[in-house]
């Protein structure tokens, strides 16, 4: 996979994120799952943007449980 290819990613974290936390991930849709986790779905231009989003997950102290590609662009 080219590091510069645009893709749609799903990032799953523990806990339900409220609107303020969700607002920190512009461009992502936030979905609450029944198991208490949240799934952030967003189209990102490249891997650097993905790493940026993951760094924010880390900085908020959120527990990251899954990252996957749902669609190429």
């Amino acid at each position, binding site marked *: 996979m080219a590091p510069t290819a645009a893709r749609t990613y799903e990032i799953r974290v523990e806990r*339900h*994120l409220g609107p*303020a936390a*969700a*607002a920190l991930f512009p461009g992502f849709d936030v979905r609450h799952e029944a198991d*208490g986790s949240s799934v952030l779905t967003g189209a990102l231009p490249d891997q650097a943007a993905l790493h940026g989003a993951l760094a924010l997950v*880390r*900085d*908020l*102290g959120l527990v990251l449980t899954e990252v996957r590609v749902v669609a190429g662009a």
Partner: protein
Amino acid sequence: MRRHGRAPEPIPRAKLRPPPLHPRLVSRPGLEARLAEAWRSPVTLVSAPAGFGKTSAVVAALRVGEDGEFSQHQVGDRPVAWVALDERDDDSPRFFRLLGASLQRATGHGAELERALASPQSPPPRALLTPLLNALDEADARVLVCLDDLHLVTDPRVFEDLAFLVEHAPPGLRLMMVTRADPPLPLHRWRARGQLLELRAEDLRLRADEAAALLAAELGRPPGDATATAVQRATEGWAAGVWLAALALQGAGRPDERTIVARLILGEGFALEYLAEEVLARLSGPLAAFLLDTAAFDAFAPELVDAVRGSDDAQERLDEARARGLFLQPAHAPPGAPVGLAWWRYHRLFRALLQGRGRVAAPGRERNLLRRAADWFEVHDAHEAALEAALAADDGERVARLLDAAAYGLVMDGRASFVERALEGLPDGVRARAPRARLAYGWALLLRGRYDDLATVLGGLEGAANALSTADRAQLAALRAVLADTHGRADEALALARDALAAAPDGDTVTRAAAQMALAGAHRELGHAGPAIAAYERALALCRAARLPVPEGLARAHLGLLYVQRGHLRKATSVTMPLADAAGHPAAAAALASRCSALLEQDEREAVRSALPEATALAERAGQPAVLANLHLVWSRLHRADGDAALAREALEAALAQAERGVPTWLRALVAVRAAEASLADGDADAAEVHLRAAEALRVRGPAASALVLARGRLHLQRGTPEDLGAAVAAARSLVDEAGDADPGDGVRIGALVLLALAQAAQGGTLAARATLARAVRRAEREGFVRTFVEAGPTCAALLAGVGHPYAARLLVAFAPEDRARAGASETPADVGVADAEAASVGLTERERDILRALASANTYRRVADELGVSVNTVRFHVKNVYAKLGVGTRLEAVDRARQLGWLGER
């Protein structure tokens, strides 16, 4: 805006010391004892997410004083070299410059690293690390280097060199890294070797009793048992969460406390987000609004906040927020911000929570605030801070405009990485509107030798060449010319440089300087010494006018080299003079090499001896093989002048080794030519032949080609058959008669005349030989050539003795006494040189006699200068006159001579 050529941005002292400890820090003796093991572990990694209290724990463990001063940052006798990193330090030269400054403060070693990396064209840090590590080792220095917030650094070069540093660290050096993410370093290897001490999130979590203690300290009362347990579980001992809980609980009565605890126990949502909302809900409306607005900024001053909010109560709200302990900390002023303001920032995590809440409460407000902040910074001439605000506001048009205006200054300040990132973040269409920024970035790449990246940048610009202004097109052509030059396409480079010059507007000194530098480089590569000199001289004047110190120094260094090749020894020494004491300049070593080369030809051996070691050390640190090759050639010639053939050969080997490491072709040829001449001096014609063939195979043009013809002629002379002598005469004559672009210059011409004279003498034509040598002497006098004659050996001395010219007498005394004696025995009845010198000795001034006496007892010019209360340059001036009047070449000879004349006795 400010122009180029300013001093490098100073390093804020606060970056080199640990942050002060929080006054109500909860003591954690177990954790602190484990952290204190860092004094014994080669590498310590403290890796955990934000808000785990990593830095606080480290600072507490290292027993740093509250004032944060270094004198008190010691455990036992080991000092701490602290480096507080931020986003701006994600650039290898900047990172290691900080490390150098910090080590300097802690150990007294590291200033060289800091200074060398302060320039936009800095040498690779690796080359500077080895001498630093050696110095620390020799000094038996014991120091703990602590890199705080290392996760902000991503530049792979930093980690390559950090790994190198750890692998080669002296025993007294300890490295501690505090980070949110494991760094890309060979941690597994260090772990396996038992060199790595690790403390991770699990080790840093607050236990229930610690969480209770923290809550009690913040609330001013013991929390209920259920509260402490609920907080510890909901936050999983995460210090930032516990702090936030304490803030939320602060204003809460018992009923609210029960509600909060119940929500935390339920543990559904994101606890931190909920706690932040609780905190905000308990604040007054104006204070909450202040918090949400100010969270838009990395750092803010009340003046900025009032300007962007149209308010007048920022200071009041700030004081209120601080009094409530709302995670405010002093911040560094943004670059170029008005002086005298106090800057603040929130703890990162709290800021993020506020930012999210603000975006929900008032969509679009954050961006408006940032745009207004960019206005405010622009009005205050803080272009870089304005740029950062515009980047945060995602205001591409403004970023492009600001970048275009500020890029040159940023590049010259060593912020090329920032320019690169800002450019990368722009959409293609907008980036096209910042051509100056891309050109400035191109120069930065060029100065760092990143030619492949430069080619990419230039390719992108060429596609948009139609949209460029005339001046920008000229800059583009100049950059392409220099790139073509480095790839050996000199003809293409010349054509491009001429285009650049034709397009450069008259009043645009920066662009004209760039075009002249490109033109000069192309001429130099093509062997057009005269036009190259003229273009460098014009470039030098333009660089001075535009205050561009780095290219100015490069022009001086190139001119020095060209003047030496052309035999303009005096010009070579004067043009390089401003760099003789500028050890921090990237071109200093190159300029010193030319300088020493000219001074040596003039037989100023003392001056050469005093400048060569520093020049060599500089070039070694900067990793400049071409300069080193030149310097080793000078060393070799100096040793030979001193009569030490073994050392001379060793230096020559070093020059040959450097030439293998990638130097311009003409220099490789020149090194081979000098090697051939050294073989001739040792009487080994076969070895000389091998070196000459190697040089001839390189098919060089210009001065190196002339030097090659001359050396070939000298080999013929040494072989000495009638055919060889004929060939030597022909070679010499071809060089003497060359003119125009092919004019080899006086350096080669004098050498050729000396060769011709020797060949004529060998053919039996002593009178013709003397006449030829007289021509050489007359030419040599103006620039002070000496060694070319001396190196030609005793036959030359014998011929000189018959040349009736005062400068011939001066030259004779520079020969070794045995050469002179042989000359006297075979050709002249009297030792002309010595007789002349004695005649001149009566002309010594009182001052010169003082100097001479001081020289006999003190061993350096510096000490002589101190003894007599004059400058070192004054001493050099007098010494030169004394040598000339005594007719000697070294201090030893001068002192001997003075003793013979009875001048050193008590009077």
